[in-house]
């Protein structure tokens, strides 16, 4: 898909790459501060989970372009052991420091849409989106640019 980015995550260095790509995508789509930071933070929280709890995984990022809004789609997936109790993980996180509100629940709170699909033994896929409005003036400008 056009504009799709994939980052394989195994190490801390990959986490930095994923953050940078997510932030750059948000900025390209016209997200204004603090949204690029929040998107980078949500990606960081999930990338940390991959490095710390699973070992490796993949982060896919895509621009979402609709008539009235722009969005950033982030899919974080792994083929680890999966999460036995997704509701509890969304409430408390996956790590031993659960309950602070960081990790999975923290990422959920920073994004507009958040979905976790996980089954024990079959890995986990987290899909999250953040949106911004695309106003009339912006659409008119884009139309004019396309004509020119």
């Amino acid at each position, binding site marked *: 898909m056009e504009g799709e980015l994939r980052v394989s995550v195994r190490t801390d260095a990959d986490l930095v790459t994923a*953050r940078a790509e997510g932030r750059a995508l948000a900025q390209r789509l016209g997200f204004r501060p603090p949204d690029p*930071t*929040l998107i980078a*933070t949500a990606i960081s929280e999930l990338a940390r989970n991959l490095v710390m709890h699973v070992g490796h995984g993949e982060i896919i990022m895509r621009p979402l372009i609709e008539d009235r809004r722009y969005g950033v789609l982030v899919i974080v997936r792994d083929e680890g052991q999966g999460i036995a109790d997704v509701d509890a993980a969304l409430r408390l996180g996956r790590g031993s420091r659960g309950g*602070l509100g*960081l990790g999975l629940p*923290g990422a959920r709170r*920073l994004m507009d849409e958040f979905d976790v699909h996980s089954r024990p033994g079959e890995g986990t896929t987290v899909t999250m989106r953040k949106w911004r409005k695309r106003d009339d003036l912006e659409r008119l400008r884009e139309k004019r640019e396309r004509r020119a």
Partner: protein
Amino acid sequence: MPERGGSGVDRGFPAGAKRFHAAYLASFRDYIREPCEATLRNAYELGREAVEDGLSVLDLAVAHHDGLARTIGADIGLNDDEALIHAAGDFFLEGLSSFEMIQRGFREERDAAALERRHAEMGRQLSHFLADASLALGASGSKDEMLRLVAEQARELTQADCCLVVPEAPDEVPLRAASHPDGDLRWAAFARWVDVSQVGSVLGPTRLTEDQIQALRLPREAEQNAPLVRGWLVSPLTALDGRMIGSIHLVNESDRQFTPVDEAVLVHLAQMSAAALERVRFYSSRT
């Protein structure tokens, strides 16, 4: 060039905070020297560490202020003040993002607590409704009173702008009961004239879609200054034997959408109302 400005590290902060200030200063200067994702990431890690160590957002602010004050004028290779201010802002924002996660969590908890309180209040009001309904049974014109009570209770419980309770049979008297803000002529006209048969029959609680609401037509008498309806929730009044004996309509002009909680409350109220109305019918037929 000597450093100038704050010296928070030496101000007698607890050891944890001192260590945090020192780490913040070092990472901040790394970012100022080389602004990139790798050095910016350290701000995120510091914010996370602060949250895990129980430091407050004010600790982060103090560390940032000290870091900035001790960096301005220091010979670290950045002479552009504007660039320094922007970079400092980016670094601080990154550190704050972990606190934002926690803050949003508090907000969720607060909203959940408010919902709990609302549920408790609803339970209390439904109990009052049962008591009032029992009293209405003994009064003359008890069906009027009962329908009015249902309309008032439903509106109060859901905080809707208007509630209509409409018996099923067209020759029923009264034709309908309404509750809306006192003295609001727009809602009064709406409640009097709107033809709820346009909604159609429903088997359970139903939230009308935007298209369905826009398709509803008001008679000329109510069209002028009519409320701009944005939300409509309807539930049937069903007797124990399954007969449809009427419907309850909640209507909103405000942006607030009806929620699943409103639906649940309306269903509960509709069941209690249907039973009470059937009792009125039973007692009326005996006297």
